[in-house]
């Protein structure tokens, strides 16, 4: 048996231990209380969403359009009671259209501002680095404007592109329509004028592949650099080849220039598809003249006369908040708004809005948005298709697929009004 002698030093040590123990116990108790308090207030705390947008620089117009879409969804959601009773707060920071700044911004949003959720910037150029940051911190990344091949090539499983299909599939629906025609009524020859751009040229190239496989002969095929301001020589080459169908793998400015050159050279193909530009409800008529729009095809996910459920309410809320006309609403605003809708849908379905739940939940099922019902493959590429739209009587009209068409496609294309 060991004799236990309590010397003054030992007694002092025991008192010290007692005090330390009491302090620890009190701290733990307080920590417990704090934890309880935090978890209680968490249900009432606002849901913070961080977004980096191009409010200045090259993408500023589109960045601001996305900002309007996000902000509108936030204000509409808060009016309706928020997400699971939590008020939504949007924190937008400017990336000046810079891929470097966007990395800094999302890192700060996640680590400094500690936002609950992050959503995507504008353009694939910025979405690629931004989504990597989100992935590193295990955040979900619902993004409305990054649909280029580089985005999905990253193989990130936290990413969801809020448009019906990858951007380069934008023309597939036009190929579907042409190849749905009886062989005798299909075009026999085709011309392709492609902007040297990773989002524009592949759209035309995909159509060309399918047309050639179906026996539609290519009579003109040229790619032009982005700095080509004057399209008249190119259109002169196309007119000399006299194709039945012209496919423009375009962005906006070059699409306008192509059509202006066609009008000036009085060359009117039977079918004319422009990947981008012709789907802009306000800018396109202003650029080529309203009377010259008739019969031009393009593809879109959302536009002013869209019949998708919720579109009319979105338009009404948008005009009430920002003013202007319905034709001035940029589709990017609808896409950003749709990103918010997805979050709300996940919350409704699961009762949770944490990142792991969002990622897991969106990987299954189909989700209604302003840009249609969306579903994705494992790397966030949407599995749907764009709508084929055509200018009919000065209005963008869905003409294919037949199940969603508002009118039958007009072909051959009416003559240019001049």
């Amino acid at each position, binding site marked *: 048996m060991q004799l236990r002698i309590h010397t003054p030093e030992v007694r002092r040590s025991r008192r010290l231990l007692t005090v330390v123990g009491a302090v620890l116990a009190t701290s733990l108790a307080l920590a417990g209380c704090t934890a309880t308090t935090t978890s209680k207030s968490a249900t009432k705390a606002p849901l913070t969403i961080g977004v980096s947008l191009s409010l200045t620089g090259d993408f500023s*117009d589109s960045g601001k359009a996305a900002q309007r879409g996000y902000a509108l969804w936030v204000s509409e959601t808060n009016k309706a009671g928020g997400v699971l009773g939590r008020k939504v707060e949007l924190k937008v920071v400017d990336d000046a259209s810079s891929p470097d700044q966007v990395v800094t911004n999302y890192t700060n949003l996640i680590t400094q501002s500690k936002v609950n959720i992050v959503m995507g910037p504008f353009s694939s150029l910025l979405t690629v680095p931004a989504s990597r940051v989100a992935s590193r911190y295990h955040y979900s990344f619902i993004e409305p404007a990054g649909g280029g091949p580089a985005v999905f090539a990253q193989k990130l499983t936290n990413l969801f592109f809020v448009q019906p299909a990858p951007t380069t599939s934008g023309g597939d629906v036009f190929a579907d329509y042409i190849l749905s025609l009886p062989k005798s009524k299909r075009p026999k020859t085709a011309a392709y004028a492609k902007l040297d751009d990773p989002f524009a040229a592949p759209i035309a190239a995909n159509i060309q592949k399918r047309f050639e496989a179906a026996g539609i002969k290519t009579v003109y095929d040229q790619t032009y650099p982005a700095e080509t*301001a*004057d399209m008249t*020589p190119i259109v002169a080459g196309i007119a*000399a080849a006299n194709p039945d169908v012209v496919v423009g793998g375009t962005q906006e400015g070059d699409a*306008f220039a192509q059509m202006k050159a066609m009008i000036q050279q009085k060359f009117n193909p039977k079918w004319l598809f422009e990947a981008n530009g012709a789907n802009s409800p306000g800018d396109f008529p202003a650029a080529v003249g309203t009377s010259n729009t008739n019969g031009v095809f393009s593809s879109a996910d959302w536009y002013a006369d869209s019949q998708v459920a919720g579109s009319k309410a979105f338009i009404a809320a948008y005009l009430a908040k920002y003013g202007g006309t319905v034709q001035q609403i940029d589709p990017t605003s609808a896409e950003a708004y749709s990103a918010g809708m997805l979050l709300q849908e996940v919350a409704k379905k699961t009762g949770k809005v944490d990142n792991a739940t969002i990622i897991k939940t969106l990987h299954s099922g189909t989700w209604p948005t302003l840009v249609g019902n969306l579903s994705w493959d494992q790397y966030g590429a949407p599995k749907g298709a764009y709508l084929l739209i055509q200018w009919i009587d000065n209005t963008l009209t869905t003409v294919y697929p037949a199940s969603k068409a508002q009118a039958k496609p007009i072909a051959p294309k009416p003559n240019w009004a001049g």
Partner: protein
Amino acid sequence: MHALIQAIILGILTGGVYALMASGQTLIFGIMKVVNLAQGALVVLGAYLTYTLFTTLGIDPFVSILITTPLLFLVGIGLQWALLRPLHGEDVAQLSLLVTFAIALAIEGALSFAYGATLTNVQPTYANYSWTVFGYQISLVRFVAFLLSIVMLGVLYFILQRTKFGRSVRATVQNPMSAQLLGVNANRVSALGFGLGAATAAAAGSVFGMLNSFNPGSHYDLISRLLTIVVLGGLGSIGGSVVAALIMGVASSLVSALASPIWSDFTFFIVLLLVLLLRPRGLFGAKTRGAL
């Protein structure tokens, strides 16, 4: 053959517009030995002024030249007086590069703030109209723009050859020191010369806005073309810049229509390289410098 002739017609008409832009650029260099990197931005500014006059007051783009040209003439004088005149010393040429680039960036920034980055263009009712002549299409706007360029260049020629100011300019270009000794006010000549260069940019901008979609960043592409033209023509030679602009227009148009648009600008640079290897001062640099 049809495509070839059509491409040549297009090239000549387009070259005429570039000649107008480049004439101001080369005039400024001739007088001040300043490579004006803001010339493209001044063209874009002219295009936006035309756009505003057209969309808000309904003033025809060609008529608006009567307003934009004197306006940018004054702006040019102001810029020279405020930003270029104070530059002194041996580094003036290099400093003026930086200053004119800063002016270009400032104009771009102001236009971005006022109009945003979206592409726009000036679209009068006749913008897409064209005549069919022997089966070839001649765009009304391009044709009138070409005529306008000839008229403007004629006015410029008249000013330089037939007026007292023109004599002062030519004297300054030939020998600045002697010109000053003979009583020519170099500062005044420089300011008016810069104003004249800006005025040609205003006229060209009105036409440019009808022919192309543009945004505040369009000046980068423009300035690279303009510099190429004035170097090919011979820095300081207006006649040279006109010939070089026509060569560029026709070469680009031909290669684009008959070969590939990808090679269009590249071909022009090959021509430039060959000319500079054989004649380092450009096509007309040695012969006409000093005479403008």
